[in-house]
């Protein structure tokens, strides 16, 4: 058998390892409101006496709907009003990390649902803070009048296997028909923006039908015809690099159809940690006037009212989804794992040995309304410059991980002009804007005496703190802090206005301009915005913060790539200190620039990203490319560091490719497709050759043995909750069809 066929066997082995097991629907039914529930919006549900280290006789009150935070602290609890519980987890409250041990049974309580107070401090449960000031998690809510909405998407099961820094993820979406008539289910969902999606299987009962990759329009024609003739069929299309639509046709009442999607991507190291992210919900996008190719946000049941090509239906605040999610990660790091944690979810962890971990979502944290984030650190100097290679009949591939040179952190940087651009649109209202303000405040306090700075806000339009950047004197910083504190959010996300304001102003001579966007990225015109950034970037660098629980990472990462900088993400459940300090660690030292990779003993080409990004402190570089050769070779990486030449090299045995690196072929193709200058023909050709989903290709599967009676029935979009922390009222337009 030819060597190239090993790819197929490798895929078979990978699939065998990602066993799919049907999971039980784990979400608890919300408790019925008491018949005698009082008119106030919330009631105390449970009260627990706690004994925690250094904190005796504390009380934990579980509040229905949301929590009232303590406003009185003692000397051991020096935190401000509004701080989240996670941010004090290193304080005496560490015991609260495992919420299950506190609550009755195994329910998980969100931090918003916890109230902590010392004995003797009375909190009046009849005078809660205004609900509009609190983050909206949406989990386990049980308000009067709330109703569970039966949905065609019952459950999503996610299984990830991570070997060193390569992840293989299998997602199973379980569709069923809870209605009386035949339906077509349509679900718009997110996946990582760099995912190489290369396998698609539809399951009907015990039959598994693997989908076929086709040109997008051809796949749609096949699907539409099968749908029209009553055959069970499914279609997977890409709307954005991180937004996808799954359609399943002719689901009869009471029947279930599963769809399994498999993708690969590299797990990025950042600031000493590896971070694996699985997005769970598409945030509500704003589309500029006149746009029709965007991503519309409509209330459940009001499909077609946004006027956009792609639409996401959102549940109203009084509605909860019957859809839940389970997730497991099998991590084989190859070296000792340290500091395994999730800033987003409650997890359970098994450690079969020091180099491996099995992570799962807690059974009671399964509402798909925020990104799942898993961070892990490896023992010792774990991130080392290394090369992995693979070869099959289509040629040779490599992945290069370049560790930032240690010397970078020893060199001071030039004076900077810092431009902070705050997204003050409606989607940022409440917790996201509060988190962005905290990040901005920390950024301002960390400005150096030689820096200048400017703060720009944008929503429907843009305005700035002053006419021009000012020196970071204590007085100006105080003015900046006052300006930041007064920012309010409302209106649309005309990001182009923020970009113009930040990038069009003439750069100050002798200064290094750094632009830092603080945004959730909820826009439907991603391509236009990235095009504008490319056009206007000049010599500026973009180091942005994605703020929220379900950020548009495609936009933030894309802006960082075009701006030759780095994106960091601030979750609402954690402090922004880590992200801000990471930014300053990077910009306080020069980058390794003008990076080139030379192979001796082999020929390398098509290296991506192209151009090769700069390397910053704490941010290793990952490159993929093609390589021809089959013996020993030497890879030399050159660059410039504060004007001085830099060079490092390592030996590679191209004949020693390991089977686990078979994914390098699709990862390379995905990276090439993801280039901003990739042409339509190039994307189509590569996607078909490597079996990848793309803007111009789609997966289609038809079961020609299952033909249902009658018309194809009603199309039912799967409504989703707005992301945790995002307000429905300011992001989803009600009544457009009334």
């Amino acid at each position: 058998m030819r060597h190239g066929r090993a790819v197929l066997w490798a895929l078979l082995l990978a699939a065998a390892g990602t066993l799919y097991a049907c999971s039980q629907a784990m979400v608890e039914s919300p408790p019925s409101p008491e018949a005698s529930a009082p008119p106030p919006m919330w009631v105390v549900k449970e009260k627990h006496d706690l004994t925690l280290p250094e904190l005796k006789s504390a009380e934990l009150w579980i509040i229905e709907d949301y929590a009232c935070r303590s406003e009185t602290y003692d000397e051991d609890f020096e935190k401000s009003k509004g701080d989240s519980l996670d941010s004090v987890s290193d304080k005496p409250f560490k015991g609260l990390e495992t919420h299950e041990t506190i609550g009755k049974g195994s329910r998980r309580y969100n931090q918003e649902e916890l109230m902590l107070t010392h004995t003797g401090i009375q909190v009046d449960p009849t005078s809660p803070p205004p609900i509009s000031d609190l983050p909206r998690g949406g989990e386990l809510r049980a308000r009067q009048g709330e109703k569970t909405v039966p949905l065609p998407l019952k459950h999503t099961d996610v299984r990830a296997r991570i070997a060193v820094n390569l992840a293989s993820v299998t997602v199973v979406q379980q569709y069923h028909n809870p209605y009386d008539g035949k339906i077509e289910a349509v679900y718009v969902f997110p996946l990582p923006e760099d995912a190489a999606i290369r396998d698609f299987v539809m399951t009907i009962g015990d039959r598994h039908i693997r989908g076929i990759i086709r040109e997008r329009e051809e796949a749609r024609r096949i699907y539409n015809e099968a749908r029209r003739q009553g055959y069970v069929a499914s279609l997977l299309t890409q709307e954005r690099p991180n937004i996808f639509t799954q359609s399943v046709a002719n689901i009869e009442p009471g029947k279930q159809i599963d769809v399994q999607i498999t993708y690969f991507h590299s797990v990025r190291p950042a600031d000493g940690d590896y971070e694996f992210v699985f997005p769970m919900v598409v945030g509500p996008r704003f589309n500029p006037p006149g746009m029709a190719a965007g991503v519309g946000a409509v209330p459940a049941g009001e499909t077609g009212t946004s006027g956009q090509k792609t639409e996401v239906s959102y549940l109203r605040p009084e509605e909860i989804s019957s859809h839940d999610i389970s997730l497991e990660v099998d991590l084989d790091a190859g070296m000792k794992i340290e500091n395994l944690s999730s800033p987003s979810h409650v997890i359970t962890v098994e450690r079969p040995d020091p180099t491996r971990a099995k992570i799962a979502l807690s059974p009671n944290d399964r509402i798909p309304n925020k990104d799942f984030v898993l961070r892990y650190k490896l023992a010792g100097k774990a991130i080392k410059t290394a090369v992995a290679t693979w070869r099959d009949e289509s040629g040779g591939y490599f992945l290069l991980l370049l560790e930032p040179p240690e010397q970078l952190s020893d060199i001071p940087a030039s004076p900077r002009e810092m431009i902070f651009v705050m997204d003050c649109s409606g989607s940022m209202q409440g917790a996201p804007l509060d988190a962005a303000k905290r990040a901005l405040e920390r950024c301002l306090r960390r400005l150096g005496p030689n820096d200048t700075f400017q703060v720009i806000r944008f929503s429907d339009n843009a305005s700035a703190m002053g006419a021009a950047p000012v020196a970071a004197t204590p007085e100006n910083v105080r003015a900046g802090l006052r300006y930041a504190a007064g920012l309010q959010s409302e209106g649309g996300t005309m990001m182009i206005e923020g970009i113009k304001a930040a990038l069009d102003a003439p750069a100050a001579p002798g200064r290094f301009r750094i632009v830092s966007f603080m945004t959730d990225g909820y826009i439907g015109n991603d391509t236009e915005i990235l095009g504008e950034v490319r056009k206007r970037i000049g010599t500026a660098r973009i180091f942005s913060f994605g703020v929220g629980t379900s950020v548009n990472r495609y936009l933030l990462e894309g802006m960082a790539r075009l701006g030759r900088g780095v994106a960091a993400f601030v979750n609402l459940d954690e402090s922004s200190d880590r992200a801000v300090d990471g930014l300053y660690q990077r910009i306080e030292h020069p980058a390794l620039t003008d990076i080139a990779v030379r192979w001796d003993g082999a020929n390398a080409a098509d290296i991506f990203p192209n151009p090769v990004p700069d390397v910053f402190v704490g941010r290793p570089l990952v490159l993929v490319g093609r390589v021809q050769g089959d013996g020993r070779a030497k890879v030399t990486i050159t660059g410039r560091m504060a004007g001085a030449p830099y060079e490092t090299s390592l030996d590679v045995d191209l004949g020693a490719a390991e089977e686990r690196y078979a994914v390098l072929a699709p990862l390379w193709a995905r990276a090439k497709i993801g280039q901003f200058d990739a042409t339509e023909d190039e994307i189509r050709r590569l996607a078909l050759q490597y079996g990848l989903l793309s803007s111009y290709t789609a997966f289609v599967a038809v079961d020609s043995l299952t033909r249902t009676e009658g018309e194809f029935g009603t199309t039912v979009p799967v409504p989703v909750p707005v992301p945790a922390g995002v307000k429905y009222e300011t992001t989803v337009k009600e009544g457009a069809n009334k």
Partner: protein
Amino acid sequence: MRFALLPIFLLGLCASAQDEAQTRFTAYDVVVDAGAATLAAYQVEITAGPESKIVGVEGGEKPYADAPYYDPAALQGGRIILAAFTTEPGAPTGKVRVARVHFQETGTAKYTARVMAAAAAGGERIEAQVALVQTGGK
């Protein structure tokens, strides 16, 4: 006005019925005959004419019940290369339904199939034959 639209509506119905007559969905079982040898792995090429498009690949009987993988680079028009293997003890002998391929046909379709490679449990290459048997949409 309503009556004026009636001919257009009827024309639409006729066109729809015509489309259905011209476009149909069908499936063929892929049966590999390994004779007396055990069939632990196979690789089969199926080729269809331009009037046929592959729209799904399904598994066969145990131990080949999982949908086989195909080589996307070889997937052009109506051509596909399927491959699967089993490590379970007691690999089957004789005629084994290893897969089912679903097609969309728009005319009189013709299919050919050949075994590119087949192997027994020990990994040794074996001689095998393949046949396509229509199973749906007749």
